[in-house]
């Protein structure tokens, strides 16, 4: 058999490929490595500029994390975030799932247009709405309360989740519902008893994304909340913990790491769905 061409070219290509990827990964992931190292660095190691900052010059320590959890409201903030997350997720599910179904199945032309219109609400971002909201929230007596967030957050979770569920329902064949209706169920009951269980994966996606959206939200929380005990994690950390004080960076980085990594792990499992939802308008 004849032999393959000069394989040095191939290994050169492969090396180039690896180097390119390494460069990108270094740029994108380095801050998290930096967070991790700083979290476990003892303070004297941190402030000693003769030490190589990429490594641990002194033995690693959990002091920073201890300070974070016991001397700040960080634990409280995490609880607040979870509370808000759960409530907003429930509201979003109740609103977005039926709406997604309606858009996928029961609409004519006006339904399609309405779908696009819902998506377009993203063009009125929180950074326009937060000003009037600050007043609305105050007038409703919800100033500095987590309930203000529970009320307002669905305004950006519902549109996207409706869009997601619409795409998801469209991919379920109509046959299942039609079979159920022949068997005697009304359309609504067919929806509840047949379609909803089958689309549990889609709803899980909605749950995950709503939770991550809640966890990331910053502008509204910054505007509505003022006292430390009521902060969510995303706002509490930058406003309350950033003091430019060198002794505090370890705890600060720990806070960032602890929140980022679990979100990242969960998000990764659903990234394909997320992108599909994003691009469903342009890539049919």
């Amino acid at each position, binding site marked *: *058999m004849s032999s393959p*061409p000069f394989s040095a070219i191939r290994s050169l290509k492969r090396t180039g490929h690896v180097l390119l990827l390494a460069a990108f990964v270094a740029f994108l992931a380095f801050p998290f490595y930096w967070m991790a190292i700083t979290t476990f660095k003892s303070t004297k190691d941190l402030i000693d500029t003769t030490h190589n900052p990429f490594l641990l010059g002194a033995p690693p320590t959990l002091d920073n994390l201890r300070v974070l959890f016991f001397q700040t409201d960080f634990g409280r903030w995490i609880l607040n975030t979870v509370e808000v997350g759960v409530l907003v997720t429930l509201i979003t599910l109740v609103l977005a799932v039926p709406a997604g179904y309606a858009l996928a199945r029961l609409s004519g032309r006006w339904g399609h247009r309405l779908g696009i219109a819902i998506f377009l609400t993203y063009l009125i971002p929180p950074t326009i709405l937060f000003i009037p909201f600050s007043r609305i929230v105050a007038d409703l007596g919800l100033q500095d309360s987590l309930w203000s967030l529970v009320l307002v957050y669905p305004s950006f979770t519902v549109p996207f989740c409706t869009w997601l569920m619409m795409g998801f329902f469209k991919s379920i064949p109509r046959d299942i519902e039609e079979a159920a209706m022949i068997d005697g169920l009304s359309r609504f009951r067919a929806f509840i008893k047949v379609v909803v269980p089958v689309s549990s994966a889609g709803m899980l996606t909605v749950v995950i994304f709503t939770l991550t959206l809640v966890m990331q939200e910053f502008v509204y929380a910054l505007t509505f909340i003022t006292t430390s005990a009521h902060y969510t994690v995303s706002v509490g950390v930058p406003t309350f913990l950033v003091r430019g004080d060198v002794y505090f960076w370890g705890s600060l980085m720990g806070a960032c790491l602890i929140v980022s990594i679990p979100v990242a792990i969960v998000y990764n499992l659903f990234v394909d769905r997320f992108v599909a939802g994003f691009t469903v308008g342009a890539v049919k």
Partner: protein
Amino acid sequence: MATVETRALTKHFDSGNAVDGIDLAVREGEFLVLVGPSGCGKTTLLRMLAGLETPSSGDVLIGGRVVTWLPPRKRDIAMVFQSYALYPHLSVYGNIAFPLQSAGVPRKEVAGKVRNAAAMFGIDRLLSRKPRQLSGGERQRVALARAVVRAPVVFLLDEPLSNLDAKLRTSARDELQQFQRRLGTTTVYVTHDQVEAMGLGDRIAVLDHGRIHQLGAPRDVYHDPADTFVATFIGSPPMNLLEENDVLSGVRPEQLLPPAAFDQGDATVPFPFTVNRIEYLGADRLVYGTLEAPHPPTKVISRLPSTIALPIETGRRYDFAVRERDLKFFDRETGRRMARGT
């Protein structure tokens, strides 16, 4: 002289050998059809000829030179895909011109060649349209025009007719064969449809599980099948196979007839059977039945042309027969064809 040749060509996947040591020599100007059921390796073989798959071992030769490790663009071939693979963002003109531009043909020449190729297939009015504005048949012609425009040494065609309506398919088949005869370019054609294969090929190669079971002209493959696979794959309805006396006998449905249909001088073997079902197809009748003694009770099919007007009823027994020389024998273990008689 062979324009396309493979030597011990093998392609190995985790699930086994898709192509298993194939030696093939395609004659110059010939229309060779690779036919077989899905998964038999015919498309993999074609893709290795094209350079879209690298073989695990073995060699590919085109025009006498070894091209096994050359990329497709260095092989002087053209290919038509099952989906036509037209570039959606280019017009028909752009699609046909693309291979010429890639080869660096000067712009003035490109226009002329594109128009000639388009005219050959009757699509010169469509040059400014985009693929999505064309019908299936028109898209197929664009794909053919694109293949023809560079005057390659070999055409490789991967089931180009299977996406057409049945009606369109027969006329497309006719045109395809005519255009190949006119150009005289060596063509390798892949299909799973044995009727298409028989109709188009100068020679056909019957493949299964990565191996060629038989390579020959349609008449030879039909009347002298090399084994039971070829015998039952080619021909519709398939050949009747009977297991008796430790041997497999085969007889084609159109050879199982009422005795009156045969000449007096021909030696025949009786094959009585009881009719289960009759299909009236217009030009033929297909009679489904079960053989009676002395044969084992096997299901058989007989094809009666409309010229035989004998009335047939379900449930009744008829004394059909087969000419002795029409019987084929196959080894029971290997399936290979044997000389007559035990």
